[in-house]
């Protein structure tokens, strides 16, 4: 293999403008966590986001599984980026991603049968999570191994964070517990709709409203207007 990509030595600069290498900064990592958060900002990967966040532990499992696939496929795509012909790249990425998803699927099956049962088909559906293919196409196919890994980790953690923030809200409101530990007393009346499908839409909508409101407030602050009413 001509391309061995050792992170330390750095790849040779090429004439191709699309091959612009990004230097490794803290931003490479942090971007995925906040500025370009896949769920809250880019609205990608909605299906698993809504479907498996009925409890915090499911959300965590899904987030970590996705992060693993993101890292594995990103690394392989980055290493093979000079070998994959442009015309068949999407198909190749999908096969690479599907391979890692199969690995995760079997791994979760072996580690925790309970988690496997509650996540169900959604583990295999990581294949069609747009975040992963999007990262492979937009980032991993152009960058060296190390930035890809760091960026993938940031994105994966950002995704996990978003899932957790949805999952914990839904679990606290819908079952009165967090990670399975009851938070309230005996007489807590669960808000059942929150763990059911509509709750997913409502909680995500509420988070987006909150972020939009915060953003609007920050932009308005110089004017010191009192028009910022609460829409939480």
């Amino acid at each position, binding site marked *: 293999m001509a391309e061995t990509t050792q992170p330390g030595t750095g790849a040779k600069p090429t004439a191709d403008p699309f091959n612009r290498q990004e230097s490794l900064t803290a931003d490479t990592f942090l971007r995925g966590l906040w500025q370009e958060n896949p769920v809250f900002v880019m609205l990608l990967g909605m*299906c698993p986001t809504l479907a498996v966040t009925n409890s915090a532990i499911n959300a965590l499992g899904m987030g970590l599984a996705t992060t693993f696939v993101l890292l594995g496929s990103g690394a392989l795509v980055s290493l093979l980026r000079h070998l994959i012909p442009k015309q068949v790249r999407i198909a190749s990425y999908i096969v690479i991603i599907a391979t890692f998803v199969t690995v995760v*699927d079997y791994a979760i099956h072996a580690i925790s049968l309970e988690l496997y049962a509650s996540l169900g*088909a959604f583990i295999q*559906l990581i294949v*069609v999570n*747009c975040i992963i293919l999007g990262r492979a196409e937009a980032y991993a196919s152009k960058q060296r191994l190390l930035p890809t890994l760091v960026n993938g980790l940031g994105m994966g953690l950002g995704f996990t964070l978003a899932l957790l923030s949805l999952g914990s809200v839904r679990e606290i409101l819908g079952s009165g517990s967090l990670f399975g530990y009851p938070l309230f007393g005996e007489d807590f009346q669960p808000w059942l709709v929150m763990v*059911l499908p509509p709750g997913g839409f409502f909680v*995500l909508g509420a988070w*987006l409203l909150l972020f*939009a409101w915060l953003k609007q407030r920050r932009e308005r602050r110089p004017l010191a207007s009192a028009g910022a009413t609460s829409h939480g």
Partner: protein
Amino acid sequence: MVSPSLPLIFLDAAVVNNFVLALFLGICPFLGTSAKKETALNMGLATMFVMVVSSIAAYGVNWLLIALDLEFLRLICYIAIIASAVHLVEMFVKKYSPALFRSLGIFLPLITTNCAILGLALFQTAKEYDFLQSLVYSLGAGTGFMLALLLMAGLREKLDLARLPTVSQGAAMTLMLAGLLSLAFMGFAGLGGSHG
């Protein structure tokens, strides 16, 4: 478990366990192409077609993989089937209706990564449906997807006329609407017996 009858499978996939509103599959095109009723209808039809084609093909491939004892390749094969089916639809639409091709835009090739389609193939395998049952299941799922898309498009067209606070414009409001729609569909739960 007794294998359910065909009308029950159809009803289950289309309404009770609606792919979009109850199982959260295919949310991206649901949010992306539901702004206008016409686009929604066309997108629904294209998705339904891909669903039926890939469901038939997935049934055949699954049978072959089990015969060859290669079940761990299932996921990769399914994805390949769906990608080819989408390509077929794309060529067809481009040839017969260029206007439709333009209006669907990027969402047509993105049907490949529509989890409703892969989900359908995976569910029918998990439920061990035979050929006829798979076919009806895919038809039901397609109908359900189209129904959800059309309802949403109707709501959003009305919403355009309403005055909203600026903060809630865009994705947040759409999600809230979807939540209400999903709440309405929960009324169908229990119709057609228990399922898991």
